[in-house]
């Protein structure tokens, strides 16, 4: 008599334990990462070469300045204020924009996680807010600019709120879906090991949802950076968005490109920090 062999594919367990195999298959070997780096660099160099070629063919620095002209402008304004009178250096503009984004983003993350947490646990709140979020989500923050100027004037308040309303729905959706994805059995395991309901909520349910919530934070951060130029259209006298707008009006194309470059560098830095946090929170990706 043989054993009754039950053929069962290893079932999907908690979020962390499933996808490791596929992640490993994606190639994290040393050779692979060097190759990736090399190709990435090649892509950047090719882009710069095409840029250089087009600017050479056009021969008009207002339409497209050369690479070295842009680079030297960027370098110059790192120490030189813009505008020349009562202006700020690129560093300071970056600091201003970064501060605005961090403030709006951080507040948005806190609000989004709190609201999302309540929505995931109390079903009538979810039914109440779901349509609201669905309606507001596709609206670009740009659409609110005139309204916010009427309501809040032209100070920091409307800028803060514009970034905030871009971040909140993203964080709510990320939080709700992250909490929904936590297997009930994982929480039950915690409870039957002696955790109180609150302790299990914090150390199992929320902890288990943390990696996808951090991914939501990354997405929201990206969204905040993409809206910064529009936000700093509102009677701003500083910030990278202001630099880009103002330099554009004055046909200072190298400076426009420098501002764009600064935004992308800052965006990459912030995203890198959040990726680090994600790696810290999810050991399966280490």
């Amino acid at each position: 008599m043989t054993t009754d062999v039950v053929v069962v594919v290893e079932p999907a367990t908690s979020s962390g334990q499933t996808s490791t195999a596929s992640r490993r298959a994606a190639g994290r070997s040393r050779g692979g990462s060097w190759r990736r780096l090399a190709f990435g660099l090649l892509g950047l160099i090719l882009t710069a070469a095409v840029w250089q070629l087009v600017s050479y063919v056009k021969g008009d620095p207002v339409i497209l300045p050369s690479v070295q002209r842009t680079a030297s402008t960027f370098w110059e304004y790192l120490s030189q204020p813009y505008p020349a009178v009562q202006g700020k250096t690129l560093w300071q503009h970056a600091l201003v924009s970064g501060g605005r984004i961090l403030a709006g983003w951080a507040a948005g993350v806190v609000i989004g996680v709190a609201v999302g947490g309540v929505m995931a646990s109390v079903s009538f709140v979810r039914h109440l807010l779901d349509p609201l979020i669905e309606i507001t989500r596709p609206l670009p923050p740009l659409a609110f600019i005139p309204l916010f100027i009427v309501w809040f004037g032209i100070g920091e308040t409307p800028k803060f709120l514009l970034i905030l309303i871009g971040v909140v729905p993203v964080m709510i959706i990320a939080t709700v879906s992250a909490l929904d994805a936590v297997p009930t059995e994982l929480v039950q395991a915690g409870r039957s090991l002696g955790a109180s309901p609150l302790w299990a909520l914090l150390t199992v349910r929320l902890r288990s949802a943390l990696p996808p919530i951090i991914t939501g934070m990354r997405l929201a951060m990206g969204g905040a950076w993409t809206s910064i130029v529009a936000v700093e259209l509102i009677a701003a006298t500083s910030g990278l968005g202001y630099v880009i707008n103002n330099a554009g009006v004055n046909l200072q194309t190298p400076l426009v490109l420098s501002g764009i470059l600064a935004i992308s560098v800052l965006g990459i830095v912030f995203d890198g920090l959040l990726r680090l946090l994600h790696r810290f929170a999810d050991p399966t990706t280490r």
Partner: protein
Amino acid sequence: MTLTQGLPVSTAARPAVELIGVKKHFTGRSRRAPKRVALDGFDLTVRPGEFLCLLGPSGCGKSTLLNMLAGFTQPDRGQVLTDGEPVTGPGPDRGVLFQTPMLFPWLTTLDNVLYGPRARHELTAETRRRAVELLETVGLADAHDAFPHELSGGMRHRAAFARVLVNRPRLLLMDEPFGALDAITRVAMQRFLLHLWQREQITIVFVTHDVEEAALLGDRVCVMSGSPGRARAVIEVDLPRPRSIEDTETLEFVQLKRRIREALEDDH
């Protein structure tokens, strides 16, 4: 076929588990959908230190029953008692092992084992020592700092064992714990479980689909009938202990399996 009588219960000892007239139904998703009765009038008594196997067709309410014993859900009617006390909620005195190990993927093996003591704010040097000792017992002495995704399927199950045993439960509730394992690992885990049970003298309620597994492990096998779930027959397994996988070849074992299978297939 022996019905519920069994060996004389050791004098004054309270039963480890008592289920009296337990009824549980689930309402459908829509209000008009008919109520689904998962369990109706379920009675069962488990002696202290007994290894009881629950066997039945899919959907007969085995997991529902175990969830009530664990305190995750409450019965609509009837009583669920462990050690003579009604179950009011989950607790560390009843260790639960799920079909998948349900380790916390963000904690190392040792921290997984220490989760219970930490959650109860009872983490002492003594518990820590016990956790390390238990990991040795389950053969994970070298895997303290490994994360669950770095362990094999069988190792994860053993880590889950250690995580439950560190709380010194009086009752182990196991819901098809080896269902997802390959045949070889499964045999190893069965041997491990029997060894553990003989050493620690805990009561075990073990849910399985597998007739052979039930006969090999259990003191008694409770065969359930499908929707609504009831205890159809309780079959005494009078094979000598300690048992091993070789015993499955004997005539007594094959006859026992046939009896269980007949009870399972018997229509009313």
